[in-house]
Structures are given as structure tokens and as C-alpha cells.
């Protein structure tokens, strides 16, 4: 599985965009097996948390499927319920 690191810039439901350190923007859809839910995404964008996303590439979508998200910053971000 590939990984990308960056900041979540925008979130709509379970879909989000992430900008990497070089300014490249990636488009993600949260996988059904992801350990978090759509409602956990907006806080990531709001707090500008740096995250690492492990993802796969589906055949029929021009987007990546995010399977796991981890925070890279010191203060851990709790999944909000």
C-alpha cells in the first residue's frame, strides 16, 4: 500500500483532499475498512493536523482509497465520536 503525508484541506462526507509538503494535492475516498468514519474527518481539516494516509488505487475511480490515517504531529488527535 502506498502512503502520502500532508494536511487535509477539505472534506465532504467521507471524501477529502490532502496537500502534501511539495504542494501536490491528492483526492481520497475513505475505505469501507478504514478505522474511522466520515465524521472524524472535519476536525483534521479544522486543526490543520499533519497526517499520513495509507491508500490503494481503485480501477474505476480517479482518486485514492484511504485505508488508514495516522497523525504525524506531536499532539495526538482523538477520533471524535
Amino acid at each position, binding site marked *: 500500500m502506498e502512503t502520502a503525508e500532508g494536511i487535509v484541506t477539505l472534506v465532504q462526507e467521507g471524501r477529502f483532499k490532502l496537500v502534501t509538503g511539495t504542494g501536490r494535492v491528492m483526492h481520497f475516498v475513505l475505505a469501507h475498512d478504514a478505522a474511522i*468514519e466520515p465524521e472524524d474527518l472535519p476536525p483534521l481539516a479544522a486543526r490543520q493536523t499533519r497526517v499520513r494516509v495509507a491508500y490503494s488505487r*481503485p480501477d474505476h*475511480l480517479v482518486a485514492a482509497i484511504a485505508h488508514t490515517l495516522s497523525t504525524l504531529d506531536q499532539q495526538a488527535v482523538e477520533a471524535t465520536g
Partner: protein
Amino acid sequence: MTVHPRALEHSESLLASMIPNEAELTAGARVEPGRRYGFFTDTTLCIGCKACEVACKEWNALPADDLELRGTSYDNTGDLSATTWRHVQFIEKIGKGGERATVMPPFQSHWLMMSDVCKHCSPAPCLEACPTGAIFRTEFDTVVVQQDICNGCGYCVPACPFGVVEVSLEDGKAHKCTLCYDRLKGGLEPACAKSCPTDSIQFGALDDLDAHARRRVAVLHEKGVTSAALYGVPGGPGADGGLDRFNAFFLLTAPPETYNLPRAPSRPAGRTGPGLASGLVTVAALALASLGLFAAARNSQ
């Protein structure tokens, strides 16, 4: 439409904040909870540009899908799906041989283009089929799949008489047009209607849209477009069977079947009434259990 007089209240190039109640400027409609809202899609004004498809994907961050030349006129979208919530259909009726169109009735003709979307039916079969309460009717009378509740059971999919709802293989949840629920909460016109270059897609309060649509049909009839008819208004085609009306209704110039729309969409039998509540509880419990199993399986990896 001309530029709304309230635009002059925001004459700076860099704006300090969003224009409040922007839908008033773009659609002449103020969005207020408790009123019913929807779309009136007037195909006679549609130029088939697909701005609605793009604006929808841009706002909702829906990914592009299935890049393939389909050869069905200019339609390379195919269907409404979990990742496509507006779909412009193209139907060529140019004529054959020497009988091809030259002098034509006013507005769109001979190459029919129609921007299809979730009808936000009333009553909504998908909502009625949803065992978890994920699908609900909002304060704007629109029908929305709530992503934090949907467990992807898929009951809504066959319930929809239009084939609108789809469960995504990627995130395992049901998706369809939300009528830009978040935008409505912020006083904004839905993205597709706002972008529509020719106002073929009009957003507004349903009673206003209804009145406008009826006037439009009368005008078209007067101008000789006698085939113009509404699809999805109470008592008319589309809403004279199991459904009372669509919150997203259409003006068509050919029979609904021409646009792959059912003449008389119905609600699947036995799906009405709260008597099923206990059954639904069971379904939900099963869904919860499976969720637990999923999580357990993942933790053991």
C-alpha cells in the same frame, strides 16, 4: 435574471466574508428551514454542457469515474451512481436522410439534452426502505443519506424506481444527491443549479418553482412547443401513481421513456407504514453485529 441589487452591498474585490444568503442573489430564493425546496430542470433551456455534473463533483469532492468513450451521443457519464449525482442525457432526434432538422421550434429540439438527478421524491421509497434511519427528510424537505449512519445494507438501492442510489464499493455506503444539504444550511444555492449557464436547472422553494414551471409550459405551448410537459408534479406524469411528487421535477418535450425515465414510477409494495418497525430493528441489530465483526476482524490483522 439580472444582477441582484444586493450585490452592490459587496463591491470589494476581496470580500471580508461570504455573501450572506447568496441564494437570494443567484436563485432569487432565500433558504429557510421548514420550507420545501427543490429543482425545476427545464430541458428546453439545456445546452448539454455538463457544468452541473462538474459543479456537483467539485462541491461534493466526488471523484471522476469510468473514463471511457461510450459512443452514446455526447454522454460519457452513463448513469447516476455513487460518484455521479448529476447526469446529462443526450438523445439525438435529428432526422434521417433529407429530412434532417433545419427550421425548428423555439428552444431545445432535435438533440434532446436533459440533466438527470435524484428526484427527492415525496414520499421517498429509499427513505422508506432504509432500516437504519440513515436516509431522512431534511428541514428543507430534501432526502439525504446520512453518512455517519449508513451501514451500506443496500435496501434503498432496489427501492429507488429511478436507479439513483448506489452503494459504493469503496466506502461501503449508499450515495446520492443531497441537494447540497450543507450549502442549503449556509444559505447557498445547490452547486449544479448555481453553475447552470442557461438556468435550465432552477433552484427554489417548491411552490415558487411549481408556479414558474406551469407558466413556462403555457408560454411554450403558446410558442408552438405543444409537446412541453412537466414530469413529477402532483397528478402529472411521474407523480400520478405511488409518488405524490418529485422535489426535483422536469420539463420535458418528449415522453419520459425517451429520457429513460419511468412513465409511472412506483413505490415497492409492502414497504410503507410503520408496521415494519420491528423488522427494521432486527435488520439494524444485524447490521450492528456485522459492524462489530468487521472491526474485530480488522483488529486481529
